[in-house]
């Protein structure tokens, strides 16, 4: 068992339990700051622009996108994979750190899970609209129909993907929600306004904190945590099979599933950093999300960045070592030193080189630097997906099929729209939901207290 002295304190400032509740709930009870409205306006206008572009996509058709016969997947799948990757952090944080008994997760898991739910929503929009006729979306459900019944193709990774994404959305949303029930009860019991009492009272599902409830709540978290761990790994592996089971150069590799899972956790952790640093700056959560929390995430990122670098180099090595002329051409003549060299090297430097700056404590301790690097990682991860999707499709086995791709304003607007949707979701989360898991934080707060010796060593996993 870790000793809190060795690991550093989990919460700063010797807070009492009621102080913890009050300070975390402050943004909900306080007057909404002006910057919040400003930010909401910006994100809603981005969202609105996205809606307009979606309208064009649906009313005119996929022809308004820059995709063509050779490069049939463009920004839509790039952004889909990117968002799903970001969405992986929430569950990775909650589950892996829960299994590894990392108590510092309690300050961050709620925000990470919120991010997951919104990011998966954003992701799901892309395949939905890429169908061209989204109102026939229900064709993908295996339901008894009048066309045979003709069932869907259970051998297709695209169907696996549909199942995985829907399951992931439902599971992460319910895991997130049930984690919040005790905190909603805290708001209900501490709020002064009647409306807040009624609204949060409804959402708290009549939670009282009795031993019967806690007993089952813990069993529930245990079950959901255990099985969702499998899901984290499987969902992005399935996304990877969308590529890996095809016979395209650069996609047809067995490294893809683990490489995608690691990449997803990488971009997700980076986005978590972006988010928690914003929370610290805007809501003065420094006592709960301490420098040590940021430090810990940054150190995890160094490790994942090394894995990413290894994966990139493994791919390049295998392209050469396999002796396959197509693979060699793809990696050396298209990606490394060809038409898409800029994208490749942006990806490589942003994901495998720049995060190595986190080795330096001076970098990890400067919040603005951590913030900038976390953004760079997310840009790098976007380029990774661009690199995978576009380069492989643009250089087919038949040179007659070779094509270039550039997005139209509709695709760009669609992407900006999902960014706006994500920001709107995050802002609403900041304003209306306790952004740190209060009850979980209280359960670890005692490890910082001096009367620790009196207690039996209790674990809260």
């Amino acid at each position: 068992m870790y000793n809190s002295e060795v690991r550093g304190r989990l919460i700063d400032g010797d807070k009492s339990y009621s102080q913890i509740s009050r300070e975390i709930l402050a943004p909900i009870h306080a007057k909404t700051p002006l910057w919040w409205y400003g930010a909401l306006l910006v994100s809603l206008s981005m969202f609105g622009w996205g809606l307009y572009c979606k309208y064009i996509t649906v009313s005119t058709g996929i022809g308004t996108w820059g995709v063509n016969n050779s490069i049939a997947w463009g920004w839509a799948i790039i952004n889909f994979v990117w968002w799903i990757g970001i969405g992986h952090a929430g569950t990775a944080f909650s589950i892996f750190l829960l299994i590894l008994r990392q108590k510092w997760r309690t300050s961050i898991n709620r925000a990470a899970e919120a991010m997951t739910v919104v990011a998966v929503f954003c992701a799901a929009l892309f395949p939905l609209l890429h169908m061209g006729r989204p109102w026939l979306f229900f064709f993908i459900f295996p339901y008894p129909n009048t066309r045979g019944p003709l069932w869907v193709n259970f051998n297709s990774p695209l169907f696996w993907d549909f199942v995985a994404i829907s399951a992931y959305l439902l599971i992460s949303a319910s895991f997130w929600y049930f984690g919040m029930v005790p905190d909603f009860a805290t708001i209900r019991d501490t709020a002064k306004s009647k409306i807040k009492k009624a609204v949060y009272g409804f959402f708290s599902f009549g939670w009282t904190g009795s031993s019967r409830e806690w007993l089952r709540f813990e069993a529930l978290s245990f079950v959901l945590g255990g099985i969702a761990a499998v899901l984290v790994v499987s969902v992005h592996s399935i996304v990877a099979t969308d590529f890996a089971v095809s016979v395209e150069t650069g996609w047809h590799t067995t490294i893809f599933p683990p490489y995608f899972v690691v990449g997803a956790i990488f971009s997700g952790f980076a986005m978590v950093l972006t988010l928690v640093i914003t929370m610290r700056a805007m809501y003065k959560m420094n006592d709960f999300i301490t420098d040590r929390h940021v430090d810990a995430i940054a150190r995890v990122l160094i490790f994942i960045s090394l894995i990413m670098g290894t994966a990139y180099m493994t791919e390049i090595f295998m392209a050469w070592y396999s002796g396959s002329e197509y693979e060699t051409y793809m990696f050396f003549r298209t990606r490394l030193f060809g038409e898409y060299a800029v994208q490749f090297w942006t990806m490589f430097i942003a994901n495998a080189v720049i995060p190595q700056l986190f080795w330096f404590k001076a970098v990890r301790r400067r919040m603005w630097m951590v913030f900038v690097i976390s953004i760079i990682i997310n840009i790098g991860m976007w380029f990774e997906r661009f690199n995978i999707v576009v380069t492989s499709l643009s250089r087919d086995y038949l040179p007659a099929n070779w094509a270039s791709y550039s997005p139209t304003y509709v695709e760009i607007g669609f992407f900006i729209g999902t960014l706006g949707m994500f920001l709107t979701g995050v802002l609403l989360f900041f304003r209306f939901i306790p952004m740190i898991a209060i009850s979980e934080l209280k359960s670890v707060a005692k490890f910082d207290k001096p009367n620790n010796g009196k207690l039996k060593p209790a674990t809260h996993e």
Partner: protein
Amino acid sequence: MSKNYILGVFDDEATLVDAFEKIKAKGVLPVEVYTPYPVHEILEGMGNKTRITHAAFFYGLFAAIGILGFLTYAAVIDWPLRYGGKPFNAFPSFIVVTIVATILSITLLTLFTFSARAKVFPGKKPEIFHPGATDDKFVMVLDKESLGQNAETVQAIIKEHGVVE
């Protein structure tokens, strides 16, 4: 709150557990204990057991069998189609959907079980003995009648560190 109950209200986990164990040694079990976060000594001491984990296992077992059965029925028996030279019963590629859909079934069914067994559901009116129990108070609820002649001793134990309300 009510005439029939006495509440022992504590400020932290250690004093609550201490009083809980002393009272239990007198042969008195509180009706219920309310805490801001799960306290394992209390959860064990109250003697309640939960079988949610067992239920989840069986949900998973039946879901997996059901889903695999459905996939086999749909793709092999009802309307077989040959995709990419694979046999009708392309068993390995059914596994992916089976795993993910099983996880989904376990999650949803376990959530409903939790909701039903812990009686936590939308629209429920909470029975609040002490409003601080979700914030910073550790509250023990004792039934006055069951105390009998222990009433005074129990009150004294509570007063060592806590407050009687």
